[in-house]
């Protein structure tokens, strides 16, 4: 049986500790309009969040995390810069049987600040690291940087369409990999696509549509023709050049202690110059982390860390793990600059944050004492 009282007390204590470090305590509604969250996350969030129908307000969702409501509050008129702390329950459907709770407490911190983003990255990481240590927990950290991967994709010598397709799937590793295999010529053109291209080569898209049978549905003939045209163009796009593709595969699988990873990235940057600014930011972040007392020589770095579909991180990412691999991360977070633009209706501000699962932390502290 979970001790929810103990969980809440610890969560509030963590948020109070963040406020002692200069954060402002904020609240967020538990019942949120679903539309924004559905728009951001799509069908994935429907499988994970509790939805309900309000007779007046329409589809509502039980808060699946604090980040979105806190960003919305900030964009609606927060101080600039600002640091926020919060504590409270979040709700996630568990699609598998087991003992993961579907209601649990999160304590978190979010920094909105335009200058010196690497300082803010390091500060969030170091604050969480230090509060975990102060409570007697020695957890395994993992860090990553989705910004480096994105910069590498943007720098590829290929069509914008292919770059956009890769960027759109950067959080879906399997799909990303399949696209990369195809764009680099490592995977053959699927038979169905080849068949389609053969047909497109023989007749105009308009004729093919007319021959296909009765037209139904909202997706218009013009939309179909535009994509058919795009397919024909894409078929003429040459594969990624081999060295560039090899570097990208290398980058996807890079796992090393942070300073060694930096050395490796510096080594490949001359061949993939587009990543240089992102690698510079990585270097600045390591210096900022070292200044906060983090041992960057040993801090684990994985270039593909944080690429899961429910997340919105586009820069630094991190998590802290217990020994038991079946447990979710005790704490996690990252930078989400693009999210503030999506929610800010034209305005944006660089932002980074992290959360601690208070219930899991309390359980681990109990195991140790």
């Amino acid at each position, binding site marked *: 049986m979970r001790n929810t009282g103990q969980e809440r007390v610890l969560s509030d204590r963590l948020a109070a500790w963040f406020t002692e470090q200069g954060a402002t305590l904020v609240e967020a509604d538990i019942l949120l309009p679903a539309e924004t969250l*559905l728009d951001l996350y*799509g*069908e*994935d969030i*429907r*499988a994970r969040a509790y939805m309900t129908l309000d007779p007046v307000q329409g589809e509502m969702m039980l808060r699946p995390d604090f980040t979105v409501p806190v960003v919305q509050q900030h964009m609606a008129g927060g101080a600039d810069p600002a640091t926020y702390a919060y504590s409270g329950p979040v709700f996630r459907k568990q*699609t*598998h*049987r087991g003992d993961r709770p579907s209601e649990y407490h999160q304590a978190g911190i979010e920094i909105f600040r335009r200058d010196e983003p690497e300082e803010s990255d390091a500060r969030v990481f170091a604050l969480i690291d230090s509060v975990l240590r102060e409570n007697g927990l020695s957890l395994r950290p993992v860090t990553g940087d989705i910004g480096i991967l994105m910069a590498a994709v943007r720098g590829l010598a290929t069509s914008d369409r292919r770059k956009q*397709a890769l960027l*759109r*799937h950067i959080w*879906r590793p*399997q*799909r*990303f990999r*399949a696209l990369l295999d195809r764009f680099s010529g490592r995977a053959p053109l*699927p038979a*169905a*696509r080849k*068949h*389609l291209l053969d*047909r*497109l080569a023989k007749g105009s*898209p308009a004729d*093919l*549509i007319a021959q*296909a*049978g*009765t*037209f*139904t*549905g*909202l*997706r218009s*003939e013009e*939309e*179909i023709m*535009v*994509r*058919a045209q795009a*397919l024909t163009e894409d078929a003429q796009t040459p594969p990624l050049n081999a060295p560039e593709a090899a570097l990208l595969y290398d980058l996807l699988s890079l796992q090393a202690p942070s300073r060694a990873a930096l050395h490796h990235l510096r080594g490949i940057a001359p061949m993939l110059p587009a990543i240089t600014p992102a690698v510079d930011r990585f270097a600045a972040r390591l210096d900022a982390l070292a200044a906060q007392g983090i041992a960057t020589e040993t801090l684990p770095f994985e270039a593909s860390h944080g690429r899961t*579909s429910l997340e919105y991180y586009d820069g630094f990412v991190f998590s802290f793990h217990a020994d038991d691999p079946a447990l979710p991360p005790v704490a996690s977070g990252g930078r989400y600059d693009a999210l503030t633009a999506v929610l800010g209706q034209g305005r944006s501000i660089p932002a980074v944050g992290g959360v601690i699962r208070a219930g899991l932390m309390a359980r681990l502290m109990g195991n140790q004492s």
Partner: protein
Amino acid sequence: MIKIGVPSKGRLMEKTFDWFGARGVTLRLSGAEREYAGRVDGIDGVELVLLSAGEIPRELAAGRIHLGVTGSDLVREKLADWPSQVAELAPLGFGHADLIIAVPVAWIDVDTLDDLDAAAAAFRKTHGFRLRIATKYHRLVRDFLTIHGVADYQLIDSQGATEGTVKNLTAEAIADITSSGETLRANHLKVLSDAAIHASQAVLFLSHAADWTADSQMALAALAAKLHIMVPKT
């Protein structure tokens, strides 16, 4: 005594009765016509419970029946981590249907999931909302599309006449079971070539949650011997 849940009407019921009958276990309706009561001859300690096929997965999960006959699609759709809740004792070889994804025939640019994903991205940009897929198989379809990395879609609930949703402009594509594909063709839809989500058929399931007393285990062993099927440890 063990309880076996069987679909209460139609071809599924008849075919189930035939399957058991061919193995020396006679299932039949008893009592007045239209009364949902049944009896079992040819073996002792087995009680027949007639249920809607759609309710049988839930009854198995709750352990209110020991055995049940229903579609493998329904068990996968309705039960979380279904192998932890029920065991497949025997595929019965009827009730075949495939859960597929279908799009309008006019979509000459869409044959695969890869195409569907790209079309969904463009559709969202043009129309301002996610491409709608009508289905009643939410769990199976969502899991399948997540595994295959399809994005920018939304599932619309459709409990019947799903093939008509595209023509009625309430969905752009559908995910549904089909056996012959005739209804799809009649509604100007075609099947994606790589989106065979599940090949369903009627299956005899065992409930892990049912009360497996020494008595009921003996009844199960006797039934299994008659049916020539293996049973897992209960």
